[in-house]
């Protein structure tokens, strides 16, 4: 059996080898990983709750397949954390909201079904900002997550729990969701790999909706190969999500061949101007590593970058105000205690149930969609979104990949930015553009500040070019030695 000290550093390859050589069974690993995660979790609050019965059942299915000599799947026995906005049948799924504190979903998300079919073992549900709205994980109704690298600092958000679990070693890989940077930003703050795949690459069936034209499910890992392996297992067309793409899913891991010489990389000048900070220095050093690997680096322009925050926060709040209308006290567990009329019940339930940030976004979204304002805000934002997406498609005629920072700064202290919503929104500048364009993008660790805080480098490629993105990130990780 593996020693508990090894658990926090396990990779998918090590789990596979351990099972093949009978160093441990999947059930033994699941029990040890659960015990370790439950003991470590109070430090960070990364998990909201554990699912031991489901984990042991999944591990036993892997062991039975192994005993029969069958292929147990690419994620066989791998301990996984799942962000709590992704529903799990029979296992509480709260979306970080008081409104869903007791919600037991009657069905599984497609991504959950697929990762278990691939042999994955879900240890529990990971903390997040309420309904995935936030950049620090401080908007969870069940308390913030602390960054395992520095417990006084935020892990980023909204997928702070999944990122922290992978960094802390209480999960090998994790599922998160990303609408404006909610996978990449926490990955960069916690020093792990986080991937937002092409829009439509992974089914959102069973993802509690925030902004449907922007929502993605994607993987976290301690290295590029593990994140790619998890994406492989969950990607592909699903008839239960009509926006999921038909494009065949390539073998991502097999394409990690290090062949990056001659890759044309663009550095958008709008992303680097005024980035005189340790973050900027580290990303610039990362670009030097890419040059040494034989990549051709040139400056490019994404001229509409400055309009991205405005367009994004109009579109995402408009869609959120519509998606969150369903939480009205009728179907989903929480209802205000004393309301004489139906109308009062709706109002009081929502007033008591939603946290401050959700209310702010519902209000913004309702305002921009209200009579007389639709054209000025929502329609205008959709047009600007088109310009931003066009910036990228024009850039990808010149270059194969775009490299940028993930966040203007590393992990900040808890409470530091909580009172300034606009400042928090503005910090999403480097990540929201990839979501608006729907292209694949990821954060890969590129070193630490003098104070020991991780910094991530973002790689973006064109629609469905996850292989090119992973190949570059994998070569960078191996050359830089930044991986876990």
């Amino acid at each position, binding site marked *: 059996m593996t020693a508990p000290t090894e658990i926090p550093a396990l990779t998918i390859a090590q789990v596979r080898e351990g099972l093949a050589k009978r160093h441990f069974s999947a059930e033994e690993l699941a029990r040890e990983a659960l015990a370790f995660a439950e003991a470590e979790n109070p430090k960070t609050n990364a998990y909201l709750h554990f699912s031991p019965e489901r984990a042991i059942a999944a591990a036993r299915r892997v062991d039975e397949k192994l005993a029969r000599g069958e292929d147990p799947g690419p994620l066989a026995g791998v301990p996984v954390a799942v962000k709590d906005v992704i529903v799990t049948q029979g296992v509480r799924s709260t979306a970080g909201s008081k409104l869903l504190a007791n919600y037991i979903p*009657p069905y599984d998300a497609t991504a959950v079904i697929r990762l278990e079919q691939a042999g994955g073992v879900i240890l529990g549900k990971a903390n997040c900002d309420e309904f995935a709205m936030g950049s620090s994980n401080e908007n969870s109704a069940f308390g913030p997550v602390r960054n395992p690298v520095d417990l006084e600092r935020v892990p980023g958000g909204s997928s702070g729990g999944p990122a922290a679990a992978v960094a802390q070693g209480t999960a090998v890989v994790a599922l998160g969701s990303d609408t404006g940077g909610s996978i990449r930003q926490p990955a960069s703050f916690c020093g792990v790999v986080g991937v937002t795949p092409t829009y439509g690459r992974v089914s959102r069936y069973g993802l509690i909706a925030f902004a449907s034209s922007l929502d993605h499910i994607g993987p976290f890992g301690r290295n590029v190969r593990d994140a790619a392996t998890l994406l492989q297992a969950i990607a592909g067309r699903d008839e239960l999500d009509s926006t999921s793409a038909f494009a065949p899913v390539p073998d991502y891991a097999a394409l990690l061949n290090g062949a990056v010489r001659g890759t044309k990389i663009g550095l958008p000048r709008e992303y680097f101007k005024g980035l005189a900070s340790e973050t900027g220095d580290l990303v610039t050093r990362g670009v030097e590593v890419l040059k040494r690997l034989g990549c051709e680096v040139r400056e490019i322009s994404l001229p509409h970058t400055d309009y991205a925050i405005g367009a994004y926060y*109009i579109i995402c709040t408009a869609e959120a105000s519509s998606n969150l209308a369903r939480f009205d006290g009728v179907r989903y567990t929480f209802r205000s205690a004393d309301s004489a009329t139906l109308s009062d019940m709706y109002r009081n339930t929502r*007033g008591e149930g939603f946290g401050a940030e959700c209310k702010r976004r519902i209000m913004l979204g309702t305002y921009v969609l209200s009579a007389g304002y639709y054209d000025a805000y929502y329609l205008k934002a*959709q047009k*600007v979104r088109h310009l931003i997406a066009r910036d990228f498609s024009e850039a990808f005629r010149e270059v194969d990949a775009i490299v940028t920072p993930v966040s203007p700064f590393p992990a900040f202290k808890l409470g530091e930015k909580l009172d300034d919503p606009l400042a928090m*929104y503005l910090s999403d500048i480097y990540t929201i553009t990839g979501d608006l364009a729907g292209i694949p993008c990821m954060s890969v660790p590129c070193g630490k500040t003098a104070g020991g805080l991780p910094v991530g480098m973002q790689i973006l490629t064109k629609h469905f070019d996850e292989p090119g993105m992973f190949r570059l990130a994998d070569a960078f990780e191996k050359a830089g030695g930044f991986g876990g």
Partner: protein
Amino acid sequence: MILSETQVRYVADLANLRLTEDEVRRMAADLGEVLTHMEKLNELDTSAVEPMAQVLYQAEETATWREDRERPGLGSEVATANAPLAGAGFFKVPKVIER
């Protein structure tokens, strides 16, 4: 841009959201600040630009059609299991029509 407390109350009403007096004051300031930032979009002439509602890919018109076959539903007992108040397979809510 400044949002009045009357406007905030009107929008909260549209959103079916009960706000406390404190929240109304705070919301007027917060929303005003964010909406001011959003006005930046007016610098761009978008008269010749198509709105982008969704990231779409080329596919046959019928590609998203699925086979029309019967599939079991959840059943009313399971579907109402998370309701705060349910009975006889229905969601229960406060009385809507007064007699």
